[in-house]
């Protein structure tokens, strides 16, 4: 145990900074938490605890360790809630919910190990767009909401209510673009709500949460999802006020304004959000899945494929890595194709080329790629729209993507945070540098053998 000289809190040996005040703790040499986790850096800190990035030396993978703040470790109610959060997450299997691997206690500190989701929170993505005077593209925002809804449906199936659905608790994973729900610190399992006081984030909080009644249910998360969706689509809160009391009062009594009050072109979605933001839970959608279906219908003009693509399940399953080079410039595309073939030397990888976003989507729908080298500035469908639609294609949704830009540069990188990309390169780029980037990604994903191997040609 490490006592903190600043605040006198007692900390586990493995942490470098005090979990309470953040002060640097004296070193006691390398110690593994629970005999297997080595913390590498602090990821976030809240009033109830701290999250570290850690390396699991047994399974050799990075993960997140969430510690309960030491001051709460002696409070049975807080420990119960923490353990409940871990158990709730561990019971869920969904691509859109962060998974918990284990729960433990080390030196008196409670923690659980969970999936490390690297990426940007939707809150950050909204801020980036707002700072640049833009909105998240509607297609992308609707796909993110649909994925959040899928995650929440899995949560509800496990008998859990999240109770804190908000943009800060949804992460768009770097590399795959999948949306993952995180932070179940307020999750409530089925059964008598023994501690259903006022908890949550006021801007996204359903009336029944504010009242602290026992009417908390999946419909509470429907409200949170709609409030988060409103923010994602408009850069504004349903009730835009900095005064928390005013916010809570309006959540309780004031009718939710329609999306079209901020963005008239979103009027086809008004009814869906209006129903999801009803004050009485009984007047809302019965489930997040029901709301997602309604949103899909109402948002057809944005969600419908711009091209005739094959239905889910009809695409060819690849037997080797497939790389798709999307670039309207024949000369640069030649280099990208060549770099891919060199980087994947020794494998049976197939490299395909598309001259436009539309062509890329047709190709990807038929033969899903594992890796896409995507030009940003293309006539017609640009890189952002192409990737947004690629992310909603069956089979191709988790393709790893390297964006190659000839003009916009790093300043435009934020546009792709909502879509999840692995790399962002600037043209011109030397062939060798391009090969190195593709090789590194190929090795990391296991597409390119790291060690020499014996096998059949």
């Amino acid at each position, binding site marked *: 145990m490490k006592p903190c000289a600043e605040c006198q809190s007692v900390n586990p040996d493995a942490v470098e900074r005090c979990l309470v005040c953040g002060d640097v703790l004296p070193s006691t040499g390398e110690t593994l938490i629970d005999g297997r986790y080595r913390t590498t850096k602090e990821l976030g800190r809240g009033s109830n605890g701290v999250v570290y990035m850690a390396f699991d030396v047994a399974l050799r993978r990075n993960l997140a360790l969430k510690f309960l703040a030491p001051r709460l470790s002696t409070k049975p109610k807080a420990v119960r809630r923490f353990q409940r959060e871990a158990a709730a997450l561990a019971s869920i299997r969904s691509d859109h919910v962060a998974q918990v691997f284990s729960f433990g206690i080390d030196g008196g500190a409670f923690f659980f190990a969970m999936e490390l989701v690297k990426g940007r929170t939707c809150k950050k993505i909204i801020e980036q767009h707002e700072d640049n005077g833009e909105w998240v593209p509607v297609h992308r925002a609707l796909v993110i909401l649909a994925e959040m809804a899928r995650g929440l449906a899995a949560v509800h199936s496990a008998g859990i209510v999240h109770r804190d659905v908000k943009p800060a608790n949804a992460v768009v994973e770097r590399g795959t673009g999948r949306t993952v729900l995180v932070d179940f610190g307020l999750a409530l399992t089925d059964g008598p709500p023994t501690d259903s006081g006022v908890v949550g984030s006021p801007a996204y909080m359903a009336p029944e949460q504010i009242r602290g009644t026992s009417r908390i249910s999946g419909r509470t998360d429907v409200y949170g999802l709609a409030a988060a969706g409103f923010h994602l689509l408009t850069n504004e809160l349903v009730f835009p006020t900095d005064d928390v009391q005013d916010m809570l009062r309006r959540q309780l009594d004031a009718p939710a304004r329609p999306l079209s009050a901020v963005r008239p072109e979103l009027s086809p979605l008004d009814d869906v959000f209006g129903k999801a933001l009803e004050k009485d839970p009984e007047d809302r959608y019965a489930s997040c899945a029901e709301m997602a279906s309604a949103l899909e219908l109402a948002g057809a003009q944005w969600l419908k494929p711009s091209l005739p693509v094959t239905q889910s399940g009809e695409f060819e399953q690849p037997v080797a890595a497939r790389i798709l080079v999307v670039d309207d410039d024949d*000369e640069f595309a030649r280099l990208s194709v060549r770099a891919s073939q060199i980087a994947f030397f020794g494998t049976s990888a197939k490299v395909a080329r598309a001259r436009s976003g539309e062509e890329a989507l047709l190709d990807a729908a038929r033969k899903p790629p594992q890796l896409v080298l995507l030009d940003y500035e293309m006539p017609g469908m640009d890189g952002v729209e192409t990737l947004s639609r690629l992310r909603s294609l069956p089979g191709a949704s988790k393709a790893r993507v390297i964006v190659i830009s000839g003009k916009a540069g790093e300043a435009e990188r934020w546009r792709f945070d909502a879509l999840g990309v692995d790399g962002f390169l600037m043209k*011109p*780029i*030397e062939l060798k540098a391009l090969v190195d980037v593709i090789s590194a990604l190929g090795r990391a994903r296991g597409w390119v053998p790291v060690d020499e191997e014996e096998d059949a*040609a």
Partner: protein
Amino acid sequence: MSTLDQLRAAYVPRLRAQLDELSGHLSAGEPDAAVRLAHKIAGSAGSYGLGEVSELARAVEHALDAGAACADQRGAIEAMRAAVPDVEAIDDAPVILVVGDVPAAPDLVVATDPLEALEHAMDRTLLAIVVPYTGGGRGGRALLRSLAGLDSAGAAPIFLTEVDPSEAAAVREKVGAAASFEGPVDEAVLEAIRRRLR
């Protein structure tokens, strides 16, 4: 000629054609088309090692984007033309791609390393591929896997060297090879292959 030189040599005539096209857009007073093409040239020329051309093209792109007159950019086109190097004409005659240590010959392109061979296979029209059936990350078998994914090499017959005679038939069938040889590639092996190709 190295594979990068070969790549650049193939690119330069296409670049010259693009500069002619760019000049045409400027003469015709078509700034949008000129911006699009200048943007492409800026991105690709630098990637092919022609940094000066890339920078000049970027300057034209930015100037036109900022509202400069097409006529004022003609000097930059001439500067770009002057910055394009003279390159050897590429040899596009069909060749036998050989991985091994043999003397150069007009009908051969010889690579000492399978990765270099892959690059040649991307650039040249191949009459045949002669490759040792060796394992490892940089062995002949790794090359064969890569060639399987390369459309341009699909039709060329494969001749394997360094194949254990006891496994030769099975190996030939697995790879789809035209023939195999026990020893490494040499003049006698090449002559046998040339006879087969005739």
